């Protein structure tokens, strides 16, 4: 067992973990934060994307021990109280989800994209979401949802 301290959604947790524990399992099973999903065994689907020290990572391909000392944000940490994040609102408004399995990862990847590029073109949105697979939507509405969020965030920032 290795003792790690990880700040998740602003709260610090100290836990003993086996080194082989994946970050996604630490979040889901030790911290009961089940918003982050596991969709594959090959690091390709992006259902598990969270932010670690400000950049998006696949938590199925990161060990919990690698997050020792880091600050992690999951989908649960995105909303501001009861006020949805612009991306969450965008996915709702633009029907960016069907079954919703890919959605937490899509939103976390999109949040990383918008942080670096607040005004992406549709091509840039698709490139930014390359690591996220969706089996339902055909991606069109996901791109619309991200565009909606970008527009909303830019208007709010302009105010």
């Amino acid at each position, binding site marked *: 067992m290795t003792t790690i301290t990880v700040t998740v959604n602003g709260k610090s947790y100290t836990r003993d973990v086996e*080194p082989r*524990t994946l970050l996604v399992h630490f979040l889901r099973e030790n911290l009961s934060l089940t918003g982050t999903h596991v969709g594959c065994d090959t*690091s390709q689907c992006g259902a598990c994307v969270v932010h670690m020290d400000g950049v998006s990572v*696949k938590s*199925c*391909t*990161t*060990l919990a021990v690698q997050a020792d000392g880091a600050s992690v944000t999951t989908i649960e940490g995105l909303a501001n109280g009861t006020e949805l994040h612009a991306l969450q609102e965008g996915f709702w408004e633009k029907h960016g989800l069907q079954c919703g399995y890919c959605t937490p990862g899509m939103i976390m990847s999109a949040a990383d994209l918008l942080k670096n590029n607040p005004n992406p073109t549709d091509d840039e949105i698709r490139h930014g979401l390359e*690591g996220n697979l969706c089996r339902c939507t055909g991606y069109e509405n996901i791109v619309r949802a991200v565009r909606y969020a970008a527009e909303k965030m830019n208007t709010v920032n302009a105010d």
Partner: protein
Amino acid sequence: MIPSAFEYATPATLNEAMAMLAADEDAKLLAGGHSLLPTMKLRLAAPTKLIDLRKIGELRGVSASGGGARIGAMTTYAEATASAALKGYAALIDATSIIGDTQVRNRGTIGGAMAHGDPAADLPAVMLALGATVNVIGSAGSRAIAIDDFFVGMLTTALEEGEIITSIDLPALAAGTSTAYVKFANPASGYAMVGVAASVTMSGGKVSACRIGLTGAGPSATRLEGVEQALTGSDGSEASIASAVANAGDGLDILGDIHAGEDYRRAMVSVYAKRAIVAAIARA
């Protein structure tokens, strides 16, 4: 899928890391983990110990050095893409901005990619074209490995047991040199089925020197020396490029699979060699 059990350590210095490596022959170094952890999850690898390099400060960062650049082994693709010191190496940025996906680029490291020697990885072609040097340290001391000697075979490099890559040096580009990398990506994995990097130096309207690196097509990355010879001395026109690449794949060891058979892949070597050279010259 969960890896089999292992110990985990975060040495603070290279000396500590080397001692740990020497003490346990089944220990492995951990960089970004984006080649190693997927294989461990599938239980294709089961190291007894992971020696995480993330706390060793000297492996990080990119610096300008002697007109060229030194890339710390633990530099991620995303950091390389954003680095001012690497801006001039367009072929490198072509690769580091399209490898895998955003999350792979946020974690995967330049040193890890080189050490892994994956036959379908992008960087090997780029490093061959740029004429890089791989700096390593081991119990016998430090040494610099010329890139032409580095890729030995399928997942095999010139790294000796117990050696750690500390940095990669890129030489200064000669005046009139421009570079590019293009790839034919596997539609499922994104890895290169054929990837070609070209570095072309023009002087007085002629190609005075060039280096062309190929990855993805065969068991390990290699230079396309026949193409280099045919292109050198030509005027760099579309017609001269077409003639230089015409037989680019001949005589190469090519691997076919369900995504692209051997003959097709061999044909694509010419196609992508041409595209890379055209793209490089267009940037001159």
